[in-house]
């Protein structure tokens, strides 16, 4: 198939890549741009390991074609930290031990980040759990992840509090 030009922004840097139009977003990010923080755990849009943010919304990178993000702003796990300073959700994951093998973690962080963007103050724990339903974790049993998101939601990592 004839390759097509894709222009988009990844972690605030502009990219122009020539890709097969069938290329999935996760493949463009991993194989063409070389950011391997984003993982893949299935072929059925079931596990969420490839979750990234597109214009601030959580998107499973295997569920969209790369061409669909033309002109859009993609954020991957590598884009969470700014100049070596971790995002609060990353610090919360460290503080709560919200990861074990780490393979689902990038996707978890991006889903969590997008969830907190939409729901800065979750009303209860179940709301967080429902928000994270699309991401599988085989190691942690989720509870530490929920605690981490809850801590951020409750403002534990707000600048003025630290």
């Amino acid at each position, binding site marked *: 198939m004839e390759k097509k030009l894709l222009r988009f922004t990844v972690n605030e840097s502009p990219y122009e890549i020539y890709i097969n139009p069938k290329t999935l977003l996760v493949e463009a990010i991993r194989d063409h741009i070389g950011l391997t923080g984003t993982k893949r*755990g299935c072929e059925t849009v079931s596990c969420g390991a490839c979750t990234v943010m597109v214009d601030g919304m959580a998107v499973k990178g295997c569920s969209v074609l790369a061409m669909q993000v033309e002109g859009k702003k993609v954020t991957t796990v590598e884009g969470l930290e700014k100049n070596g300073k971790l995002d609060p959700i990353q610090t919360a994951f460290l503080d709560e031990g919200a990861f074990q093998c*780490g393979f689902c973690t990038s996707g978890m962080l991006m889903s969590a980040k997008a969830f907190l963007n939409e729901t800065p103050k979750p009303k209860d724990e179940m709301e967080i759990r429902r928000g994270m339903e699309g991401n*599988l974790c085989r190691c942690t049993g989720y509870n530490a992840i929920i605690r981490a998101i809850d801590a951020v939601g409750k403002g534990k990592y707000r600048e003025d509090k630290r």
Partner: protein
Amino acid sequence: MSENKYSVLNTRVHNVDGHAKVTGRATYTFDVTLPGMLYGKILRSPHPHAKIVSIDYSEALKLPGVITVVTGKEDTLGVRQGIWRRYKDLCDEAILTVDKVRYIGEPVAAVAAVTEEIAEQALDLINVEYEVLPFVDDPMEAIKKEAPLIHEGFERNVNVTRQIAWGDLEDVMEEAEYVREDWFKLGGQHHMCMETRAAVANYTPDGKLTIYTSTQSAYYHQALLAGVLGLREGNIRVLAPYVGGGFGGKFELDGAQFCASILSMKCCKPVKVIFSREEDFIASKRRTPMYYYVRTGVKKDGTFCAREAKVFTNGGAYTGMGATALYLTGFFHSFPYRWKAYRYDGYRVYTNSLPSTSMRGFGAPQAMFCSEQQIEWIANDLGLDPIEMRRKNGHYEGYEVPGQATIASCGLDEALTKIQEWKKSKGKLPANRAIGISAAGFMSGGIFNWFDSPYSFSSAVITINHDGTVELHVGAQEIGQGSSTTLAMICAEALGVKLEDVKVHMGDTDHSPADLGAWGSRQTLMAGNATKMAAQDAKRQLLEFANAKLGFNIIYDLDIKQGWVYNVARPERGMSYYDLCKEALRGKEGQRIIGRGFYTPRRKGMISPAYSYMVQGLDVEIDPETGYIKIHESVTAHDCGQPINTLGLIGQLEGAASMAIGFGYYEYLPVEDGKIMNPNLVDYKLIRAPEMPACQVIEIDTYEPEGPYGAKEAGEGLTNPHAAALGNAIFYATGLQMKEAPIRAEAIAKAWKEQQQKKNEKKK
């Protein structure tokens, strides 16, 4: 809990590899790209049982971009390997089969091409002629005389048998005043590691192979690959810096590792093989499905007399670690109770289905599902309190499991009390809701050496740099369970430094001492002991210099804590550890301080040097019409000796619970005509965040003399009790006795309907 006397142990710390994992910097085998790397794909058998007549791959080679094709017959040594290396006949798997296929998904040929897409296209161009053979996929059928023979020389397809026995079963059974027998059926469960099987093999013309792989034991894979490839162990370097989960499924040689290596050796280029999720389902391995017959005799007052178990396990096509699971299921079926007589006969039966192996719990979850439900039913039959009945018959400190094990630490009694208190505190629950409990115990590393390793079971080497930073080299494998953090904490505590002073080096056979790796809950105790010994060795050397430097009377003890080297009698007198390191190095003519440690269990019985204990409570709501359950709360009273890594411990227990609930309820892995029916994450159900209950852990304070600082297993044993606890809750809520795991919603609904019909008939 008593005040923490340690400065590093049992404190909340960040995982030593945490920063890499939360920033996407952690590079897994899945992420490895080498210059000039090719992509390998595996052609798999579509038949459960067939002879390979011929393989023609000439068309595949013509496809532009295809570099090479390998087959078992032409390109491998045809060595049948296995992890039970002491027993040649149990080394039965060639990985890339030579003559016949024994399960759907078995590797038949492999292709290396410049892209994964081309490699995949090439598979369609390989023409394999099969002579299809009759097959059998159930152990109860496979053991029959007329069943097709799967391996030459294994009559009735019996792969391994195991007996465990003490006391005179029939005599003691006679003493019993109540005898109950039940049959149970246990399903398989998939490891479902987030990172599928993965390898990047790089063979170079100097005869050396470097392989990145997702493994639980770099040393095992080094040794196993050497055996099948005809290379010296020392010429193979296994690298596994980050591993996306293991759970018992990643310490046997797999198709990704073997095919990547063979392909790379043939073309002298790096080759990457990553299993798709479907491949991982159909052609890695699984928890061993079992049929369990249990006969238990007790006195009317609830005193346990005798137990007999006969078990037929579905071994699938090859042995793997399944032989160990066969032994351990029989041993842990007796746990955590004292039986005057016990007899277990286990038969591992070959079938034409996915091979079965170790998986978190290693045979014990199956055993506990049967045992802990039957015990509950017996207590009910006799009108006894099930918790008190467990207490009356439970293990205690100093108890000897006849001929098998000595229990040096045991918190079972207190754990039962804690769960009893919790149960009482819940009061009366609404209809269709009940508490189920289950007890369990587990090992802290196996003592067996069927792998025939000439090395210590665990080793550690510590070198201290002039600035006081510490390089801890271990063969223990971090797979997410937190071993690197746990060992760094033990090292820091024993040496007397800060956690951030310690760097852990593992997952590299060139630079780490050999270690059996991450399985059987062995690393905290075994690698922990080795690390502690190495740290103490290094510390002793440092203190020699400190003694000389500080000039105290020799009657005084010196120690190091949190970077301060001091006189134990007068802790304010001393010097900085960091200054001491500089001085000590100078005194050693510039050489670094090196400490060495090792651990191999000796005279510790048949199974393990130490045992953890736990009692699990679940608060469960059941809708009997649909069979759907909701777990409101999970409470675990848990004895793992001295906790080492506080956060890691909680994570391990919650993670074990999620996997155990999967085994008990969600994770159904049906096989029909030798074929796994749901090899994807849409149809294979895993617990997700909304279904996961809140988990409370009550630590029971014990001290294990064999463990480092008194520590023992945590995180695998807790895979054992949940399925039975779930079954017991269902029993109290509905009166149903569910004898098949996972307890599927459909099965509950069906059994409920039948029960209601029977009740209605009686009324008439």
